[in-house]
């Protein structure tokens, strides 16, 4: 039983979004620390 096209799209675009979210999280952390120090 194969995955559906919608689930496949969710996996692909969800992964791309997660990588961008990780970038956003790290950037936010760096900026926050710079501001507070």
């Amino acid at each position, binding site marked *: 039983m194969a995955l559906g096209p919608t689930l496949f799209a969710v996996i692909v675009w969800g992964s791309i979004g997660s*990588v961008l979210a*990780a970038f956003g999280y790290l950037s936010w952390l760096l900026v926050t620390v710079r501001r507070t120090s």
Partner: protein
Amino acid sequence: MVSQTVALVSTVATLAVVTVAGLRYARGRVGTVEDLLTARNSTGTAATTATLIASTMGAWILFSPAEAGAAFGGITAVLGYAIGSAIPLLLFVPVGRRIRELMPTGHSLTEFVLVRFGPAMYLVVLVVSVFYMFIFLAAEMTAIAGSLELIAGVPAWQTATVVGLFVLVYTAYGGLVASIFTDTIQTLVILPLLAVGFGAAVVSLGGTDAIYSTAMSTDPTLLDPGFRPGLEFGLYVVFAVLGANMLNQGLWQRVYAADGASTLSRSFTAAALTVVPMVLLAGLFGVAASGLGLVTPETQSVAFFLVVTEVLPETVAFIVVLLVVLLVMSSADTMLNAISSLVTVDLARLGVVEDGESLRLVGRGLTVAVALGAIAIGAQGYSVLQLFLTADLLAAAVFVPIMWGLYAEGLTERGALAGSLAGLVVGIAYFPMLRGIVTLIPGVGGLLPEPAFLPAFLGATGVSALVTGLAVAVGSAGFEFGSLSTELRSFDEPAAEESAPTGEVSD
């Protein structure tokens, strides 16, 4: 195809920018051998997370997960690879906190093994750990050389030499301080580059619906989550990656570099969550390559690059060149520093080298020696997959007793060795890649079971755990964990640059 000149110029420019940044940052910050090798309690959550992502995600993510997707079981194999890459990072949360608590002035896992178990177990762990890390480094050099040869026709020896020498310069000079700082920059470039590059690739291939339809019409098992070979691969790769990462000195260095236990927990968890989509995306290229009919048995290991060179526009291929260079730099500097750190710490521990200045020189000298060896191997274009899997198998058999030894007072050196050797015997008996060597032993050939990866890796870890558990149950010697903190010393002796600022790699 990207032109050779463009590829070489952009590679050298990327290498130069990162190298200069690393050198400038490290200047005046590497006052002692501790700064060079440990950077103890100096990095916050952002830098620790970034360096963990950069260190673990080398150029291998553009080869192995895609190969798994194309040839070892489609999306199920890729999912297993992605989850398998995250598990070791999550396991580092409890064991990393534990080792910091037990030996706050420690430096490496082998140091723990020497004091906790003794010289025989120490030797086993040292050999397996250095073997794995050197293979990782050589694999990265081979990967970058092979990538640029595929994408732009750059000769392998040119790429390996240029990349190796640049990384060597800032790693030998700035040690772990430079490695963590450059890792932070590299991660901040790699993540958006990966997301944008892969997003552009999906659009160029006609969107997810088109990729899905093509894969389904070529081979429906590529997208079948219940496909048995994919499930098997997904399972054994978890054990392969887990064991190898638990013996990765680069990760233990970062356990100590984190500025506290909560930073350690947050950073390893965040890194674990980030590597899952990274490996998943790279692996899906293998599924796409197979679906597009680009893969043959000879080319399955470069499935990712087949899509890049044969289907995608040149701009995406150029992004991939930059991505590969950054991925290689960020993990190669970690491995270089990790190997030199492991040996340097042990030379000091064994009393071979005493004073801080000599240790620093030894550390830098070893970095040069290891880098030259890795460049030489990388330029040959060998297939390092067999060596990689062999190193993974050895680690899968050895890591369980070490981790158990962090908690169980009753585990003796004999028990740990018995667990490791039992795991090794079972693992090697099933391991397909060592079958040729093992059958050379008289009388053994007829006793061996059918070779397969799943029982090899599962057997190595499972039997090792079983025998270790038995050894703990029958063991009576109560190890005094308190002795770990008294027997280990810091090498923090101010050297020539003692007036320099401390080696902090702050966020």
